[in-house]
């Protein structure tokens, strides 16, 4: 393996033990080669059912119209956009881990990067479906939201934040997909070389694009990976910034807030890490990746959750402060109403799960407890879903004119679509861990002790 620009030599060991490259390959490849375990099938049955609930809900939605949901005037966005923002947010962890942490040479990311990237893609897919299907006429929205020259001479509105969303999310999806695939190429080659069946051989041959582990390949690969990382880095910040513009650019009190971009980005990373944490802990356990995904990694993730959670909490409080400090009575009303109005329970669920419970991670004991990490991460996911619910629904339900105030009551189809999106996400995750290497084989080899050349004689020397 050629030397990379990174020097990991001063850092703690990323993985436990001192496995050989072959052991690593074997370990990572095991789920792909083995006939799936029974619990994998049980998992798939559950997520598949959830997915089908989503499919049925979607069919009914398309048949009847968005009226099957609980949305109304004034709350014209409900679970649809809540779910959209939620899933886009989930996606952010992947890019942050694979791009930003890569640039910052955080080698502890290696074990989880592949996984997180895949989750990004799946999450963005989940998000995109809500963008399309929340519209009244999705069959037209799918085409008309894109600027394409046409005989009608109609064009899209580049001043609309929703249009920015279209570009932001599409760019995000494309870049993430390319980045992910790029990282997979050496692994595909490894799988190709270790393939035992023809189907695998052919499939992986095609997917590995003729990778031969040559020095040149590695050189190009490293450069390309670095460039892609650089390319993806601004997206981590831009996508959720733009999603936050959907709200910040509007004039509705509770939405019209300048703090939204950083607050949304922090929130996105927060929720994304929590989701990665959840899926990671299960996978780690199920596939016995304990040596590759160490407790140290999990602890670091928890630290990030703690930091971003506190940023988000700060934003919540700052929003309140500014609502009061601005002297804008309508805005103050919206915030007081959030905390003490009809949707107080949603607000306090959000506050509890996002601001209060993550503070438990100050304790190292909790931070390094698998169970605590898992449970608190679930709390974060719940909290972040509620954050979007609070922002969207409570701001709309009591806006300027008291005459038009109303309540949003979700219907079974709202829940159906939500469950369906989780079904889609976890089904894809399950398929991913079965059919693709869940941990980057090539990368992990670069961080095993002694893999890197060093001047200090620590491990292998050149």
């Amino acid at each position: 393996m050629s030397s990379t620009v990174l020097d990991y030599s001063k850092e703690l060991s990323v993985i436990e033990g001192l496995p050989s490259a072959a052991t690593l390959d074997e370990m990572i490849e095991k789920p792909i080669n083995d006939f799936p375990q029974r619990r994998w099938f049980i998992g798939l049955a559950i997520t598949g059912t959830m997915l089908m609930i989503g499919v049925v809900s979607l069919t009914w939605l398309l048949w009847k119209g968005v009226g099957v949901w609980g949305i109304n005037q004034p709350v014209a966005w409900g679970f649809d956009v809540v779910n959209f923002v939620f899933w886009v947010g989930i996606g952010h962890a992947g890019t942050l881990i694979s791009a930003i942490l890569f640039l910052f040479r955080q080698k502890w990311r290696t074990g989880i990067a592949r996984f997180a990237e895949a989750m990004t893609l799946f999450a963005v897919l989940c998000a995109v479906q809500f963008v399309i299907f929340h519209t009244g006429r999705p069959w037209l929205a799918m085409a008309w939201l894109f600027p394409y020259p046409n005989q009608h001479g109609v064009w899209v509105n580049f001043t609309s934040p929703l249009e920015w969303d279209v570009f932001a999310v599409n760019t995000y999806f494309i870049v993430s997909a390319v980045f992910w695939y790029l990282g997979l190429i050496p692994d595909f080659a490894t799988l190709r070389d270790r393939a035992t069946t023809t189907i695998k051989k052919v499939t992986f041959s095609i997917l590995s694009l003729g990778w031969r582990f040559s020095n040149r390949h590695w050189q190009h690969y490293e450069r390309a990976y670095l460039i892609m990382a650089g390319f993806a880095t601004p997206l981590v910040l831009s996508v959720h910034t733009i999603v936050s513009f959907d709200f910040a650019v509007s004039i509705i009190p509770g939405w019209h807030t300048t703090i939204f971009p950083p607050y949304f980005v922090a929130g996105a990373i927060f929720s994304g890490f929590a989701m990665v944490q959840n899926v990671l802990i299960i996978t780690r356990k199920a596939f016995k990746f304990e040596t590759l995904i160490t407790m140290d990694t999990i602890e670091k993730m928890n630290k990030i959750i703690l930091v971003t959670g506190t940023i988000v909490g700060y934003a919540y409080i700052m929003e309140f402060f500014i609502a009061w400090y601005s002297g804008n009575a309508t805005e103050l009303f919206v915030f007081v109403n959030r905390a003490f109005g009809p949707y107080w329970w949603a607000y306090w669920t959000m506050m509890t799960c996002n601001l209060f419970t993550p503070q438990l991670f100050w304790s190292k004991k909790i931070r390094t407890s698998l169970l605590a990490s898992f449970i608190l991460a679930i709390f974060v996911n719940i909290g972040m879903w509620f954050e979007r619910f609070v922002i969207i629904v409570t701001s709309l339900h009591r806006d300027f004119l008291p005459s038009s105030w109303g309540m949003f009551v979700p219907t079974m189809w709202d829940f159906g679509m939500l469950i369906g999106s989780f079904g889609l996400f976890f089904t894809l995750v399950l398929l991913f861990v079965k059919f693709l290497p869940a941990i980057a084989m090539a990368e992990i080899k670069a961080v095993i002790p002694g893999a890197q050349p060093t001047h200090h004689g620590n491990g292998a020397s050149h």
Partner: protein
Amino acid sequence: MEPSKTNNSESKYWRSLRAYHNDPSVDDAKAREFAKEVTDGFDVDAMSPMSRKQFLALVSASAAFAAAGCTNYRDKGAIVPYIKKPEEITLGKANYYASTFVDNGQEYGILIKTREGRPIKIDGNPDHPVNKGKIPARGQASILNLYDPERLKDPMVVESGILSKSSWKDVDASIIAALSAAVKEGKEIAIITHTITSPTAKKVLNDFTAKYPTAKIYSYELFNDLNRRSAWMKSTGDRSAGTVTPAFPLIKWNEAKIILALESDFLGYEGNIAEQTRMFVENRNVDNAKNISRIYSADGTMNSTGMNADYRLRVRPDRQLEFVLALINEFAPNGKASLKDFAAKNGLDAADVKQLVKDLSENKGKSIVHAGNALPESVHIAVNVLNEILGNSALYNKEQSSVEYVETSKNDEWEALINKMNGGKVGVVIHFDSNPVYHLASDYGYAEALKKVGSVVTLAEMQNESSAASNYVLPINHAFESWGDHKTRTGIISLQQPVISPLYNSRQKEALLLAWTVSAAAFTETLYHEYLMTRWEKEVFPAMKSSVDFKTFWYSALHDGVVTFSETAQAFGKATSDALNTVAPVSAANDFVLYLHDNYFVGDGRYANNGWLQEMPHPASKIAWDNYAAIGVATSREMGIDENSMIEVSVGGRSLKLPVHVQPGLSDKFIAVMLGYGRTVSGTVGTGVGFNANLFMSKSASLSPWLYSGVTVTKTSDKYLLASSQEHHQLDDTFLKDIHKKRDIIQEGTVVQFLADPKFLEKEHSGSTIIPKIKYDGVKWAMAIDLNKCTGCGVCTLSCNVENNIPVVGKDQLGKGREMAWIRIDRYFSGTSEAPSVSNQPMLCQHCDSAPCENVCPVIATTHSPDGLNQMAYNRCVGTKYCSNNCPYKVRRFNFYDFRSEFNDGIQYQQPLNMLHNPEVTVRSRGVMEKCTFCIQRIMEGRELAIENGTVFDGSGVTVACQEACPADAIVFGNMNDKNSEIYKYRHHEIGYRVLEEINVAPNVTYVAKLRNVESQTEKA
């Protein structure tokens, strides 16, 4: 080998070498088309005598029949242009015909707009001297009844318990036989009708009774003015010639400085609302602020008049007599009752009462005290006396009086009829477009008695409770398919002409009686038309002493829709104080009092199947699609009853479970219920909407048929969800209290304040922006709504619904907050829950210059026009709903479903409802946003006209639908760049304000702040 000659010697062609060599197997193969044994024994001739041609003919014929049979009946309506253009129709141009709309004994001159022969919109006839171009909500929506898919289409007969289709011939014959038999047997023929307003119809009835001498006519209205009439007679002794019952004087509301309305909703549902509203708002003009009238409303319910009152006194209906007597005592002391005591006992504000007395005494002859129809006779007598004492008879209209052709039948007449029915002495009952089974007080036992009548004939547009109990159910023409003349005032006859030929096999109700009078064969489509014209030519026209011939007169009269002539009004006597001696004092009841009252939209239930009317929210409660038991806040707390729980109300053994609405401002220990709901036999829209509170009515009501004391109320554990278009907030929630005022959505002041400083409302609005403002140099549309005039009646909403093809969404969707009305009336309460002050505000798209909806639409489906309109391109809209979210006024409406197909199993898609649509307005599909367009179709019409005439379009002459319909003329619309226009004046009005001006969206609707005419500098409560 030579080719054989036998084998087609002419042919040089051969298909195979075997053929060339004349192999016999080739001939054999040729002879049999199919392989051996496949078709052996196949003898064509033996199989069928049918030739191939015949077979094909049959196949094609059956295919053609099948195709014809499967044809959608809609296909018949292929769009074919006129080959010969009818003289009066230009495609794309509307024709207007003057006609008459009659509602609850009130006539309104109307103009019916027709397009290509189908009526699409009703508005008032500006030439009509009474309603002057305005009509009530029911008139606007009545067009839906014309096209109601569930109208009766053919005469029906009940044969052995089953209602089946019949023919007019058979029906006529058997009814005439039944009528003759009844006369022969000396049995009565009872004709039961609503108020007869037509002199010609009266003549028809006279002819009928002449032919069938045992016939007797009964007339009723669920909401009638019998108490008022009899009270007038008792207080004055009037029994003038010319009218059957002594009428009562009409009131010149426009001359009243002080109005004291006692449970009288003269702005809401009593009397000629269009006329009364117009007269009332004449004195609510800010530009003549010194002369603004003052209105006191003493009522127990929260009605339109009370909502618009400057002072509202909470007086329970059963205590009104005490109140009026106490007032009389103030001006003509009799030592019997003291106003002070009354005020103290009933929790009235002493200062308010003092002010009332002061105002009444200072404005003698310029004030009016008016009691509601539902109040007992005694209250009316006392009111008449009070008005006389105050010299208010000066405000009685001496030029005009009301006219009634058939006396409203009284209690004893009904009892006599029902006794006769039970005794088998009634041969035929004819329900002449009436529904007594539903309307008559249940303890008459009318429905039971009806079973003992041989022939029951119901003439109706739709199935109703009475038709369900009939042997003959006969479809009658809708008013817009009918001829008629209506006279409810002296000197004015309003003409009614059909604007469309009957849609179904129905007949005009008068023509039916005529045919039965003359002979069944006498019926022609023009029977009644000719009868009407003959009567006019012979009886009316000569008296007119017109200088033109009859035909000219008749056509011009039809054109105008109204004929006025000089006729002496009934002379009214004076009410004397002696009349008070007949008044029995009402013992103050401490138990619950039940008050039944008219509703604002569905009337006495006749409009139950009209979805537009059902969906109109009640002005105070904003609840639609139901009636309910309204109770006061204090009472609800006392009893621990919440909104949407059910209570059992019982009076005199009659009890009914009703959902509760907690209504601020209602009297204590008082239950108000609207009548006209709970229809059991109506169309699919109207059946089962609300609760039938007619059940409470009793023939032996002690106070009045609408007012009952000794009511018991029981809590139940049942729940019932009422659908409301506006959330209900607790008035004592400090967080929400007066929020509409804190946000300057409602800006109000008092007349005193305004007179002292006309600019008292002016506020600094920086309105600074970094974006350069777009200049509108040409026409720039704007609207102004004068909240001093707006009474919150909701006619604008209905007019808009009809004009802009707005669908009915139904109760569940309304409850979810998905109503589609483009203009709504926002109602705000401030003050305490006992004495709330109400503010109404029509809210519609504000067509903001910096419209926040526009920049957020990703597909540019909503844009701004150069004349300042915020536009929607429905075809481009993909339905992100972002615009709606970003609209600070929440006036955008989204088609969450295809509501036409979603509501009531798609009844709105049934024929012939599509004929109702305004062809100038797109019918929106599912998934599309919509909103007020400022009636762009009317603007374009104005523009086209200007282009056609080669003139510069300055925006004058364009009226929008809500503006045209507003009975108070509270809505002004026009080109704000035109300095001579009225809108310019309003746009720069001293107390004009824009809602949410501070968010800088630059709305183009100006609201003129309401001035309350109260004494104190600051607003009351």
